[in-house]
């Protein structure tokens, strides 16, 4: 597998998963498996009005690229895409999309899982909650389960 160039973007607007898959596989005949992960904003049983996503411009993209290159070194992938949205996101909308393409299905599943596990803990994004009841929203706390999810890859 030759070196791949991960496609990484941080943007305000939504995106088309179909188009992103096509971009990743276009003109190739060696891709046997494409795994996508979409992370969506939940409404927390009606309590949440929106999430406000903040990021560290420059480092956010650089960190995701570092994670993607590590994934590409561990599994035979033909392409990796990661798109993270910032700004205000309402329940039901997509926050993040990760795509892994590979000749083999387990490589695609593992690379996508790895990319998400590290993106959660290492990419500089932060979520603030806006509540429906008008009470000032809190910054979301980091989860210990996310650290554990990352550490199982070591």
């Amino acid at each position, binding site marked *: 597998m030759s070196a791949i160039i991960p496609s990484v973007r941080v943007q305000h607007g939504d995106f088309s998963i179909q188009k992103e898959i096509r971009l990743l596989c276009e003109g190739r005949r060696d891709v046997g498996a494409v795994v996508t992960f979409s*992370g969506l904003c939940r409404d927390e049983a009606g309590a949440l009005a929106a999430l406000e*996503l*903040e*990021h*560290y411009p*420059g*480092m*956010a993209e*650089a*960190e995701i690229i570092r994670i993607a290159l590590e994934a590409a070194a561990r599994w035979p992938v033909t392409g990796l895409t990661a798109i*993270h949205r910032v700004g205000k996101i309402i329940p039901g909308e997509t*926050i*993040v999309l990760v795509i892994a393409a590979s000749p083999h299905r387990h490589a695609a599943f593992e690379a996508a899982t790895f990319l*998400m596990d590290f*993106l*959660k*803990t*290492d*990419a*500089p*994004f*932060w*979520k*603030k909650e806006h509540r429906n009841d008008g009470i000032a929203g809190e*910054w*979301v*706390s*980091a989860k210990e389960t996310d650290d554990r999810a990352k550490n199982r890859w070591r």
Partner: protein
Amino acid sequence: MTKLRYFAWVRERIGIAEEDLELPGHVKSAGDLLTFLAARGDGFAEALRHPKVIRVAVNQEHVDHDELIAGASEIALFPPMTGG
């Protein structure tokens, strides 16, 4: 001069998003920087009260608190990340 950048609740508590600062010679590690900034009082003391939870990035790469920061052009302080 070093550009300091603050994010999320670190930024909110400090009250500014970034500043340019001449760091004194005794501030050698990322941990030293946290101690130095916390001593500036008010928002800084509040934001950096639990230094262990603060993450530090030097020139846009994560570093541990014992990492030396000499020559850094940009240092960022922020809480644990919650993206994805």
